[in-house]
């Protein structure tokens, strides 16, 4: 039974409006599942709480720009070397989006706990000397280490209702190959109740099974596969194309104030179908594609 769906149908069926905890894959400006995120905005599926990878970027900021989220659990939202994320910054400074302050170790260990049905996860020494647990008592707490008697910091398990993830390719069952960096996307898939996957291309199971150990996400965790070549744009898709720093800067400039942000979302998301959007950026995308010669990981290797 094929799980390949049109972008609109995948979001309609699997992202309920008001979803409790939704997580978005990718890290910094890489492998952000932008096509899925744009469709969530088009369909106005509000998100109660967003969870990012240890470094969220446009995947979080665009959702904030569109007024989609109430709360964000994150250890970082920004555009790395390019600058701060304008809507995240404004929303937090203005108190319109609540932050559940996390750190990278908690996000990865918390997803491990969520994936494994662990009631909570004990954390390595150190976090209790920061201000983070003081401002986020929902995700951090303390308990007794019964082996030593010490009070130690612990984190709550992270169990997203829905994960929006990008992979390089998948078969119709959702068995997916991630090229390049894996970030915490696999743990998001393992920990989430529902997984939507956007891919550069759908391939045969025969092709996938030539490299059984290259598959990062097993199909039984995946609910929908959406084929959207270019769908990470303007972020990078490892193995396919680099991020577009010019478009990121354009977004940052446009989103300097709230009305500019709303206008950007209207023009490039709400008033544009995904196909139109990707048609319009096809020229930029072709310039950003990794050339065969310059591939750091050859195509024959990316399946590892």
């Amino acid at each position, binding site marked *: 039974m094929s799980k390949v769906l049109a972008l609109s149908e995948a979001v309609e069926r699997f992202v309920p409006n008001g979803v409790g905890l939704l997580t978005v894959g990718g*890290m*910094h*400006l*890489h492998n952000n599942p932008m096509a899925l995120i744009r469709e969530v905005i088009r369909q106005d599926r509000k998100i109660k709480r967003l969870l990012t990878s*240890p*470094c969220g970027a446009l995947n979080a900021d665009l959702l904030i720009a569109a007024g989609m989220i109430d709360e964000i659990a*994150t*250890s*970082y*939202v*920004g555009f*790395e*070397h390019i600058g*701060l*994320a304008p809507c*995240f*910054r404004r929303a*937090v*400074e203005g*108190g319109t989006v609540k*932050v559940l*302050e*996390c*750190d*990278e*170790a908690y996000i*990865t*260990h918390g997803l*491990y706990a969520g994936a494994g049905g662990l009631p909570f996860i004990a*954390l*390595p*020494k*150190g*976090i209790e*000397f*920061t*201000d*983070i647990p003081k*401002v986020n008592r929902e995700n951090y707490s303390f308990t007794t280490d019964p082996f030593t008697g010490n009070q130690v910091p612990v984190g709550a398990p992270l169990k997203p209702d829905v994960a929006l993830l990008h992979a390089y390719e998948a078969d119709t069952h959702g068995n997916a190959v991630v*090229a*390049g*960096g*894996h*970030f*915490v996307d696999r*743990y998001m898939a393992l920990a989430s109740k529902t997984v939507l996957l956007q891919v550069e291309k759908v391939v045969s199971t025969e092709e996938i099974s030539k490299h059984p150990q290259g598959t990062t996400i097993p199909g039984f965790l995946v609910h929908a596969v959406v084929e959207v070549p270019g769908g990470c744009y303007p972020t*990078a898709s*490892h*193995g396919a194309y*680099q*991020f577009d720093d010019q478009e990121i800067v354009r977004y940052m400039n446009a989103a300097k104030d709230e009305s500019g942000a709303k206008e950007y979302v209207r023009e490039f998301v709400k008033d544009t179908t995904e196909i139109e959007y990707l048609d319009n950026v096809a020229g930029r995308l072709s310039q950003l594609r*990794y050339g065969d010669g310059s591939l*750091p*990981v050859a195509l024959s290797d990316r399946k590892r």
Partner: protein
Amino acid sequence: MTTSSNENSRPFSRNELMAVELANRLRNDDVTVMGTASAIPQVACRLAQLTHAPDLYSIAGGTCSVNPHLGPVVPSCCDYDLLRADTSLSLNDVVLLEGRADVLTVFFAGGLQIDAYGNCNLVSVGDYAHPALRGPGTVGLPFLSRVGRVLIYTQSHNPRTFVEKVDFLSGPGFLRGPADWKAADLPGGGPQLVITPLCTMGFDPDSLRMRLETVHPGVEVEQVRAATGFELIIPDSVPVTPEPTAEQLSIIRTLDTNGLLKGK
């Protein structure tokens, strides 16, 4: 940032000097980790590998590749290009090792605010509930409490960055000083070095407060004092930071074919 008038005439940029200063502090048995926007420490580690520290391991947090070959240096820690490397780990593996506290010897840190005891803040400036400036978030900075040596670098040396006490502590340095630091009994060795476009600083072993070590070529001690928002310990004699050697510069430029470090 204050720069001296003859800055542009020097044969190296401030970024290149910072990379060399960091490289000079790395050892052959180091296992280093770096995070977000880490072009400078990436170059520092590769430079060290290609000169005095061939056995050093460097981990690019993000992709988590080990010993990326660079050439070109890339601005993002998650770049696909970083996978041109000796080997690769998963992010989860690196987070695990950051907890072990006996494997990773160096972390390159920074912050919106860095205080007199080397505590870092990447989260927010002002009252946390109503921040004057919301930063991106702390990422992995709590790891500072567990790593062998914290090497801090920043491209902003001014009184807003260098403050007496961070508004939000997200990366532990020596906390509030010797008593606090001793009581915490953290597994890490604490901050060792702070490199800025103006100078190189260390920490006074008794007070654990930041202390000026060297000023970069063309920078005056008074400039550093004025750019620092707390009372910096300044020894009677402050040498000038050694300039990069021709060999070091040549290696950097072979790696940095996009000229990312050339800017400043």
